[in-house]
């Protein structure tokens, strides 16, 4: 198998992080997990994952702030922001920072993994 892609999953809901992480590992990704925004930033800065899947509305810090900090320390990390509802203002803000917004909050494992592959292809990594 080729080099594993490192995926960092950041969300308040640890159960979902663990379940989705389990699925992505089966799909051949190296999974990193974070249960809060700040934890996510720390891990991203240290490990420099290829992909970061992050919830926009977290308790301790908002997703767009996480993107700002991660992009500053690890510019190559592709940020995919997941949320139930993204307003146009935030969508534009994210686009300007080079992040993706993915409007699906129930995260469907298979469809989301397909989206990750699509993004990796777009960046010529696949």
């Amino acid at each position: 198998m080729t080099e594993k892609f490192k995926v960092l999953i950041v969300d308040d809901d640890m159960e979902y992080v663990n379940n989705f992480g389990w699925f992505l590992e089966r799909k051949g990704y190296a999974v990193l997990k974070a249960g809060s925004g700040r934890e996510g930033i720390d891990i991203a800065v240290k490990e420099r994952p290829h992909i970061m899947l992050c919830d926009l509305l977290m308790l301790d810090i908002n997703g767009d702030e996480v993107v700002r900090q991660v992009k500053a320390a690890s510019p190559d990390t592709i940020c995919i922001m997941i949320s139930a509802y993204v307003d146009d203002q935030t969508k534009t803000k994210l686009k300007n920072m080079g992040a993706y917004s993915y409007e699906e909050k129930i995260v469907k494992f298979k469809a989301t993994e397909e989206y990750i592959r699509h993004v990796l292809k777009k960046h010529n990594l696949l």
Partner: protein
Amino acid sequence: MSLYPLPTLIGALWSLALALIVLTRSGQARVNKVFSFLCFAIFTWLSAYTVAYFTKDINIAAISCRIACTAVILVNPLFYDFAVSYLRIDRERKFVVLAYVVTALMVPLFLFTNVFLDIPHKYYWGYYSKAGPYHPLYLVIFFVIFLRSIYLWFKAFLSRKTLPPIEKNRLKYLFAVSILIMLAGSDYLQKYGIEVYPFGWIFVVLYSTVAFMAILRYHLLDIEVIIKKTLVFASLFASVFTIAGVVTLLLQNLLGKFIPINNWISIGINIALLIFLYDPLRNFLVNTTNRYLFQKRYDPVSVIMTLSKAVLTELDINKIARLTVEKLVDALNLKSCALLIPNKEGNKFLIKEERGIADSKIFFEHNAPLVAYLNKVNGAALKNGEKPLSGAIIEDMKAVDADVCLAIMVHKQLIGILAVGGKKSDENYTKEDINTLMLLADALGISITNALNFEDVRQKEKLATIGTLAGGIKHEIGTPLNKISSAVQKFLIAREDGDHKKMQADEVVSEAYDLLTRCQMTFEKVSAISAKFADFAKPRRKADLELVNISDSIEDALGVLEHEIQAKNISVKKEIQADLPRVAADRDYMQQIFFNIIRNGAQAIQEARKSKEDSLISIVVKEEPKTRIHIEISDTGVGIAQDNLSRIFEPYYTTKPEGRGSGLGLAIVKELVERNNGTILVRSELGKGTSFILEFLGASS
């Protein structure tokens, strides 16, 4: 014929007129009766002397003089009584009684004995009383009482600074009146043989005039005399031309000896005067009488402008109608006024509120001449205006006793009619009056529309806020669903991948059972969440009274706002007293009240960009004496500037940028609070935060 009785007669009649006005027009208060008796006594005195001057019979003169003097001594205690009663100096009352007693003792002595009065002496003007041996004693008593009274008036006059302006003016006039009455008493000099025509009558005429002016200008003794301007002008005109006629007659008599003048020339001169002096004389009279007699109590224009603003802040149609009609009648001193609005079907205009209308059941069909005219002209219909109106329109206006009818229009549609009756003073409506009334009609248009559409407005506002919570709703439902979905997906994929073949059957079933249990719990939870939003958004046509638990209403509102508050990192501190009495109110209204207030607080905190520790909404609910429930909801948000504080409950008033706020939230809150018989206050400090304080009455038992 002797002219000497004439002045005293004039004085007597003047005083009598004043006595009658006070007696008939003022209230039942004792002080008013005392004053009118005082005037009667003065009338008696002067009319008795009129007889004495007139008669040639010494016996009649003697009786008249005694009557006159008795009346005079009665003036003493009455004058003292008036001062003490008007100024409310209770500790002097016993001295007033003493004065009455002393006077009562003197009365028979004056009438039947020669102790104080001797037989009258015939002066050049007629018979007049002569002082008896003990008269100086009476004079001492007279002076003591009079000077004490004057002293009381003087003291009151000096300390008038603390009184309201109208009282100050009344006191000024009364002080003058008291001095004039005392001067009128100067007629005792003639009793000692001083041969000067008694001039007390001058002061009597003066005091009556001053009192009368005080009544007209400052409602002295609470007498309201509404003088018809036409009557005043007519009498003044007549007097002026009578005097002119008399003067020409005298001149004719005088000059007739030197120059041949006959009657025709005099008449011609009078007619010429009439033609040339009519206009300037009329203007002069109008200006003087306006300045001295028809002083308006307050400026009606500013009162109506205040009314317009007040009406714009009302959302209840009944309150709007009552406020408008009452304030207009008061400000313009109207005979009648009515506000008509369309019925539900929109085919008739019915009277919503009226004062002084003869037939309050009157209504207009939508095609009535007046209605059609107002619709067309979008302004005012004037009974006595420059534009003549058709007979049918005038008939309609007469039916509502209106001199002026104003169209209340919104979007080119007639939604109300303001029927303004004539002024009590019969003054005409000036152009300024009409323009001001039209501005009021504009304000009424807006506020009537708001009020009639209140339920719609309230519902729209609710849905609009729900709309902006859409993101929060999706998140609130999405989060628990995502959680259980991840567990379910894991199970399904594990099965697809064949993981379960490696497990015991009952292990797999057990895992499935746990999963399905959790699914069911989540279904119920999500169902509850969507129900809470649906319940909030549900439209309700009419108010529904039930026994509402305030803390439940607050919890409902917090439930709907839970996500928004959390997303803004705001902590909520609740101090809700247990066992609060319930309130008879509409549950839906209560929920909307707390929802709007708490949401405003959350938005204010977000605007302030405060740190998490400083972002707090605190809710305190406690029971106060008399089963009142006191609620205080405070936030640590941006606060409201003192200038804006008085306007925040105004409909459409908002400090938010275009499109961000409807400006209706707090206006609706205030209206809903009032419909639940509660009160609401706001306190705020820029940069620190805002507090809303509400109070409701608990239902007894």
